């Protein structure tokens, strides 16, 4: 699977395109959980498409079900209703799609593996020869700005460095579709901006199809080419914005532009309603 480059997969996809360029299709997605008192709906009839090369941010207040949606797209969670297609294949919970990479919100590095062993994990599982693996891992370590930390255990690293390792661990498998669940949520503002810079550099060069979950509007505007706004619980689709700031983007400079400010306050207003609804619950 790993040897199949993006071109090959695109060709395969072009054979029976229901919608040209569509990579992810979420259709009438439902999710309800049963808790002690009864059932509650977490995701209510959500539909959207993500096209090839789009960077879509799934934005919403805490508890709106955005991570739940992402987990269903990744096949980590069974859905209660609706359908999800990746390249027109139905997503089946428990079945792994090698085209898809996933970055967790929580630190899921393996603490018993060094930085290079963590980054090389997927290659090791795929049976990539040791020499090639070492070569690719070394490049990834350098790219993540972790030169000199290859033999370090994750516990010795800062939160930002750990998340870089997590990012590289996923990216080294060259996924065409990248699912990210608030990957920088636990980082301080400065480190977060550094991570935005790293991610923008990578994405602007490689243009993976990204679905990025966040509750941070500034983050969504900085990174995404499109923002899907979800309502407070139960999560429903509220609005869909195009974010057409020019690229390459500078995460710090961008925030000082008038365009950014205008879009920010516009979405902020819409998002604010949802935050107030969350509080009122």
């Amino acid at each position, binding site marked *: 699977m790993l040897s199949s480059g993006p071109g090959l997969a695109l060709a395969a996809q072009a054979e029976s395109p229901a919608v040209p360029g569509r990579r992810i299709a979420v259709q009438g997605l439902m999710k309800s959980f049963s808790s002690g008192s009864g059932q509650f709906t977490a995701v209510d009839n959500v539909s959207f498409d993500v096209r090839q090369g789009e960077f879509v941010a799934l934005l919403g207040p805490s508890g709106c079900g955005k991570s739940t949606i992402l987990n269903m797209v990744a096949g980590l969670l069974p859905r209660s209703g609706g359908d999800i297609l990746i390249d027109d294949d139905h997503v089946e919970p428990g079945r*792994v799609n090698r085209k898809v990479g996933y970055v*967790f919100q929580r630190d899921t590095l*393996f603490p*018993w*593996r060094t930085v290079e062993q963590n980054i090389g994990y*997927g290659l090791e599982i795929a049976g990539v020869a040791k020499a090639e693996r070492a070569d690719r891992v070394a490049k990834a370590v350098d790219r993540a700005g972790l030169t000199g930390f290859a033999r370090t255990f994750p516990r010795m690293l800062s939160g930002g460095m750990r998340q870089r390792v997590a990012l590289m661990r996923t990216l080294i498998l060259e996924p065409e579709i990248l699912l990210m669940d608030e990957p920088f949520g636990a980082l301080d503002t400065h480190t977060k901006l550094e991570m935005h810079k790293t991610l923008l550099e990578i994405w602007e060069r490689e243009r993976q199809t990204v679905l990025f979950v966040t509750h941070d509007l500034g983050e969504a505007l900085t990174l995404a080419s499109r923002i899907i706004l979800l309502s407070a619980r139960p999560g429903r689709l509220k609005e869909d914005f195009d974010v057409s700031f020019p690229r390459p983007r500078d995460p710090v400079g961008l925030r000082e532009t008038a365009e950014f400010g205008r879009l920010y306050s516009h979405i902020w207003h819409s998002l604010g309603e949802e935050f107030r609804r969350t509080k009122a619950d």
Partner: protein
Amino acid sequence: MAHRRSVILFWQLAILALTLVVWQWGFEWSKMLLPKAYVPKILDPYFVAKPSLIWNSFLRLGCFSDAGGFLACVRNNDNNLWIATLVTLKNTWWGFLFGSASGIAAGLVLGRSDFLARVFGPYVVALNSIPRIALVPLVILIFGLGDLSKIATAWLVVFFVVFFNTFEGTRAVDRDQIAAARLMGASEFAVLRTVVVPSALAWVFASLLPAVSFALVGVIVGEFIGAERGLGKLIIEAEARANASEMMVAIFIMMIVGILLAMLVQALQSYLLRWQPQFEGTG
């Protein structure tokens, strides 16, 4: 407050020296100095021997003071100290190895399978409620007086300790780490090998250290109840002759055996768990 190493060492040696002096001469001195009713019976060499007697017994049992020479004595004497130590050490080692290997295997299997865990759960609890030592006569009946019954006894004691810890450790594995491994293409077996086992290892090792001592206890008890050779057998023989100093020799050797085995496990632990903060820079 950090005390200097030398100060700590000084006090450690002082306590050792004081203990040895009181043990050696305490009974005679108190007989001379105190009225008869106040002489502490606990110091009576008839019960607890004394260092000089223990040393002599050590030389005799260890074939150092034998008239026929060391090698002839080792060859002729069926349960001399060296053979006894070797037998006990060997049985403890195998009992520990089989016990922990099977405990780890069973813990991993039941920890990864809800179905099996629920089927076997009550049986495990029931078997674990049996005081293991109560089974020793039965084990000897089945396996005879030789090494096999001692290994089986040690296995009985070790298995459950290691099993429960491995089971809990397997249950405690971070679900997101498993999900991450799966998303990177790991099969069920690869998840077991690369995530579950390393993650549960800390729990496993927490049980291996007591398990070593338990294995030694199992073997000794087995030797008490019925054996041809071994340190436990040496104690029983000495008891029949009311020879406290020979018992003490066996007890000291057991202590050394116990320490050596524990050190071996600790060395392995600090190498395999070197990613954990408390083992940083060791191994």
